[in-house]
């Protein structure tokens, strides 16, 4: 069926597309449930930004992997093991502190990724990244503002933020993993170098945590597997909810 040779870059763009889609879905779960009306709109705005990035990346992935799949095929008709998002973005919303910490850790990673990919030799990816930089700059600002206020806020807000950081911190090591395919794409100038991303990420996250009086968790547990389709327990439930309508009513439209 495949008439075009698959470019390994397609596997790379798929990872980022899945990151965007899954975090978008998690943030959309806050819709009508956020602490205030204003925050409700803020979180769903971020969700919609990420959904837009996912759509562009799925379209590019379809060109690269030569399958000609559409956005809906990627989002609704793949099984759990076929999703290659990182584990961090699929983690449950928890309390508001958990959502804020997840956003801080991921948006910092994503901003550095998009900055680097703005110079990708894949000009389509570079264009997607350049547009996304502006959006994610705001996502990170939003998360940073809340991290500072809640981390350095009341005893209760500090306790919740610290607890969220300790729960989610282990999932950050996966963001900077590399493999043979990624190394090759870095050499081609298509992908961002995970080692450089880690340096930039650390330089951005640490000062924010320090100012927010929060301590990075000290743990040697480094869960991994998302990039190979091995997800945490909560993922299947989220996927079932996300795909249910499309699979029950194929081709349903608004």
């Amino acid at each position, binding site marked *: 069926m495949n008439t075009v040779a698959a470019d390994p870059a397609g596997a790379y763009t798929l990872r980022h597309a899945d990151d965007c889609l899954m975090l978008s879905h998690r943030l959309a779960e806050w819709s009508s449930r956020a*602490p*205030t*009306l*204003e*925050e409700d*709109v*803020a979180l769903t*705005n971020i969700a919609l930004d990420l959904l837009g990035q996912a759509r562009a990346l799925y379209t590019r992935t379809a060109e690269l992997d030569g399958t000609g799949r559409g956005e809906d095929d990627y989002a609704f008709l793949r099984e759990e093991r076929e999703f290659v998002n990182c584990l961090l973005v699929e983690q449950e919303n928890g309390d508001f502190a958990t959502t804020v910490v997840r956003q801080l850790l991921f948006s910092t990673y994503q901003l550095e990724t998009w900055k680097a990919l703005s110079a990708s030799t894949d000009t389509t990816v570079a264009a997607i990244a350049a547009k996304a930089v502006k959006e994610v700059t*705001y996502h990170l*600002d*939003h998360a940073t*503002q809340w991290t500072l*206020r809640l981390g350095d806020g009341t005893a209760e807000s500090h306790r919740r933020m610290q607890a969220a950081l300790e729960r989610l911190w282990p999932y950050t090591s996966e963001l900077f993993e590399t493999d043979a395919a990624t190394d090759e794409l870095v050499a081609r100038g298509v992908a961002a170098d995970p080692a450089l991303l880690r340096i930039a990420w650390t330089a951005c996250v640490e000062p924010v945590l320090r100012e927010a009086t929060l301590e990075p968790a000290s743990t040697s547990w480094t869960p991994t597997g998302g990039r190979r389709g091995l997800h945490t327990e909560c993922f299947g439930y989220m996927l079932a909810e996300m795909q249910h309508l499309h699979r029950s009513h194929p081709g349903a439209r608004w």
Partner: protein
Amino acid sequence: MSNEVGEPLWEVFIRSRRGLSHNHVGSLHAPDAQMALRNARDVFTRRMEGISIWVIPSAEITASSPDERDPFFEPAADKAYRHPTFYDIPKEVRQL
């Protein structure tokens, strides 16, 4: 005036484009001025409504009272000469 989580109320003013003045568009809750700006961005500029935002604590606004309506506004009702309606406008002036 605060919401259920104790955040004060802010009035939001937005300038839709360069050269126009900021207009009042609504109010919202936020814990402080910086968060109020961000909330205003999220709530009121989702459809490219503006290029500049002001937020002002609602508590800082001094408003006229409905009780003062007559002494404040009624006296202007019969001062037609204050309106520039008695001037002939030259044809050459297209916009005034």
